């Protein structure tokens, strides 16, 4: 922690934390010496307990976490850093993957994630192939993508694709009927292939994407009857936002965008179907067409702010300030709208690795379900995975509407009593049965204990907390888990033996892992 905090921009930025609160008089604004800092944090934190809403510390850190940091010799911040990176720029990780990225160091890890071409996903493709999924069926489409997220060596690419799917979104329910459900896969592949391309290219591609042409009715637009649906949402939800255009821009934009249609699984541009009258769109006039509309929007001063806010809220924390967004806006403009450059600026920003960002969002259903599946290295065919994410409130390829998932913007929307119960029941099933078709394949805890040579209940809790929670489990809560594991259970049942020779009931050992995954801490990302 010391090394990261003091030596480079890679560490959490303590000064930012300090800025969030009014320092006591006489305290220098720069990072104070460590003991002084911690003492102050603890005072503030304890005061926060009595302060209602103020109890949520600005930095998003608990008193316990800070207390633990000050008393543990392991480099916890380093540990937080890579776990945090892989949760946000991916779907979490098991111990081996975590160790791999930790060895790279933070900046190299970011570049490894961004330069995904160097990591092969051939194995993933072969495994998916072997499942013989029918990509004309929505359930199989969902499995196909959720398993990509679980098995990929390119986690940021899949996460970025998920981000774009929540913004430039379509639903299988309106892409031309069951015979054409596969248009959703075509759209998904486009978003994956161009995830880090220029925003201009992404907008050009999504405008002429067969699923999108159906979803927002642009394929119905004709020379004499432009349809205004796509024109409005392109401005309101994809580029500049409400308040930057008028109803006239909607109708003029619609006329300019006319000309695209769909045949089978491909789209085509028909000049004869394009309305070639003079148009006035966002201050530009001429016989504008879709290329002009997209160039105007990609260049519009509101666009980088709009996009930066979406990216920042999704990947870093909610309600970013102008200062938070400025570097992303700069990167957008300096790179000629390159999303890879914007993402690099985001991931290497002090804000991304700040305590304010840490655990500052609730896991989305996909992050939760895929995350647990990936981290535990479950190897079944995940037949039950789609229905669980649906019950948790997120069905990929079927967003609630053209604005995508509200939880992508405000993650608290993901949590309610029904989705919380589903999270619990998912964990329960995952551990004692697995998600595969056919007979139960419980997670083999005895094998894990033997392979990792886990000597005791304490070692068991620590092993899983290390990669599921970055080792960030306060000592009193660790004690609660250990005492649950070691508490006597009624009735005869299977048992699990530790390396110290003691055996405990299976339900207690498995239940302890259930408690970790169902804990408040694990709901956070």
């Amino acid at each position, binding site marked *: 922690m010391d090394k990261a905090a003091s030596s480079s921009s890679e560490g959490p930025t303590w000064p930012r934390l300090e800025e969030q609160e009014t320092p006591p008089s006489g305290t220098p604004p720069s990072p104070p010496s460590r003991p002084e800092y911690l003492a102050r944090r603890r005072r503030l934190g304890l005061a926060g307990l009595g302060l209602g809403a103020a109890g949520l510390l600005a930095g998003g850190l608990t008193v316990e976490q800070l207390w633990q940091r000050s008393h543990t010799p392991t480099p916890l911040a380093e540990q937080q850093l890579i776990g945090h990176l892989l949760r946000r720029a991916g779907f979490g990780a098991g111990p081996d993957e975590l160790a791999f990225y930790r060895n790279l160091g933070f900046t190299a890890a970011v570049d490894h994630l961004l330069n995904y071409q160097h990591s092969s996903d051939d194995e993933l493709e072969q495994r998916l192939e072997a499942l013989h999924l029918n990509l004309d069926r929505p359930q199989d489409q969902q499995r196909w993508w959720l398993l990509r997220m679980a098995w990929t060596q390119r986690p940021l690419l899949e996460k970025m694709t998920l981000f774009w799917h929540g913004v430039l979104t379509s639903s299988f329910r309106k892409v031309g009927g069951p015979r054409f459900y596969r248009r959703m896969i075509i759209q998904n592949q486009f978003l994956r292939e161009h995830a880090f391309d220029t925003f201009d290219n992404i907008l050009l591609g999504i405008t002429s994407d067969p699923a999108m042409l159906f979803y927002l009715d642009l394929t119905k637009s004709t020379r004499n009857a432009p*349809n205004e649906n796509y024109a409005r949402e392109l401005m309101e939800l994809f580029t500049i936002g409400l308040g930057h255009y008028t109803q006239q821009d909607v109708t003029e934009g619609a006329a300019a965008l006319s000309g695209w249609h769909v045949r089978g699984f491909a789209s085509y541009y028909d000049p004869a179907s394009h309305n070639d009258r003079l148009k006035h769109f966002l201050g530009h006039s001429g016989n504008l067409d879709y290329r002009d509309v997209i160039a105007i929007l990609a260049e519009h001063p509101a666009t980088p702010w709009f996009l930066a806010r979406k990216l920042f809220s999704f990947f870093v924390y909610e309600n970013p300030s102008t200062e938070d967004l400025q570097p992303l806006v700069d990167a957008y403009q300096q790179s000629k709208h390159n999303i890879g450059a914007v993402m690099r600026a985001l991931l290497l920003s002090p804000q991304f690795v700040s305590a304010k960002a840490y655990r500052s969002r609730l896991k989305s259903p996909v992050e939760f379900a895929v995350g647990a599946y990936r981290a535990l290295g479950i190897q079944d065919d995940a037949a039950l995975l789609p229905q669980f994410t*649906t019950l948790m409130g997120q069905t990929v390829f079927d967003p609630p509407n053209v604005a995508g998932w509200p939880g992508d913007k405000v993650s608290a929307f993901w*949590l*309610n009593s029904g989705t919380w119960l589903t999270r619990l029941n998912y964990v329960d099933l995952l551990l004692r049965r697995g998600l595969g078709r056919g007979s139960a394949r419980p997670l083999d805890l005895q094998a894990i204990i033997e392979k990792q040579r886990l000597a005791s209940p304490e070692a068991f809790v620590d092993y899983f907390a290390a990669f599921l929670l970055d080792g960030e489990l306060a000592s009193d809560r660790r004690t609660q888990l250990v005492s649950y594991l070691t508490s006597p259970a009624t*009735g005869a049942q299977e048992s699990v033996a530790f390396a110290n020779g003691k055996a405990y009931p299976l339900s207690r050992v498995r239940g302890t892992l259930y408690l970790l995954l169902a804990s408040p801490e694990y709901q956070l990302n």
Partner: protein
Amino acid sequence: MILSRRALIKDGMLAVSAGMIMPTVFSRALLSARAQAREGVRLAQAASERTLIVVQLAGGNDGLNTVIPYTDSHYYQMRPALAIKETQVLPLDQRLGLHPEMTGFKKLWEAGHLAVVEGVGYPNQSLSHFQAMDIWQTLDLSGNGREGWLGKLVAGLVDQEGHPFKALDIGGQTALALSSLNAQVPTLASLSEYRISADPQDRDGGASRLEALLKLYNSYPRSAPYAALLETTALAAQEGARRLHQVANAYRPAVAYPQGPFAEGLKILAEVIVNDLGLRVGYITLGGFDTHANQQETHAQLVKTLSDGLYAFYTDLALHGKADQVVIMTWSEFGRRVEENGSLGTDHGTAAPMFIVGNAVNRGIFGEPPSLTNLDDNGNLKYTVDFRSVYATVLERWMGASAQDVLGSSFDTQDFLPSS
């Protein structure tokens, strides 16, 4: 969305959460006779209360093809392809009639249980789905509201009685209308999933694991991120799940509901009402109304789903003797453009009708159908009734709540419900 600790203390919910680690809450068998007696009294009280069911028609329902001005020649001029023929309309009076697929609503009308409020809207509509939805749900005309009008209503009710099913939202995500700064509304997509599964290896049915879990939530530091939200969610969920499955499941639908998720959701609401779980506000959404192209078939299917579903729901409640205590209200974020577009669809509009269903309603058309010739600059209807006056009517005349408190200011009421 983050609940403040102070708010919880103030509202007395902290006392409830202290009970989270008491073993008695985990098993019906352990409930004392006294507690059971208390329960009985409370359920009896709940049964006497009135319920409001709110149905959201998401996407912007085409009001003109739902409640059709079938004697207005302008309607047929503006909609040469999409207009419903006069001979097909199900007439309500000399001016207005229902879409031909809405036979269920026609029956409710004939039985005297349907009211229509015409021309409902608000000033300066932006034609954005999302701003309009936010405004209808939070009443903040800037579109930046965070607390829902029903959430405010329910928060008051929860404080008084602490009942887990004062409100119920059917779906995967709590509607903004129900979001509250200091109450959690149970939200569920499936009744059978609204329970905590146990590990069969656990001989105690999962009780000790659940107890350990709730202890982890109860002892989660108050200052940690999302602490209050996580804790109240856990509390509401486990208490609600327990209560739900504790009630002997006497409910059997008295009618055959149509297929599909909308009717399935209505069935859940009926079950909660029939089982006297104390529901005051139920919420359900039917989506897909954004009919920019080829709308005829889609829209017909949607209004049929709405009408058939609510007719089955009403009839089911009536056969269970519950129809007197339930009023249903529908809303949509906007109506659609008067003139059809070139894709056999309609674009975003403004004012639209709302439906009110129930034994308590005064049958009739309320409000004034907007003129089809005196349109705004975008070719949209000028609203004649402020949506907040419809809310005020339901709050004051049905829920017995102060519209002033919930809506933030006073609005005229309408006569679709009796004034006393």
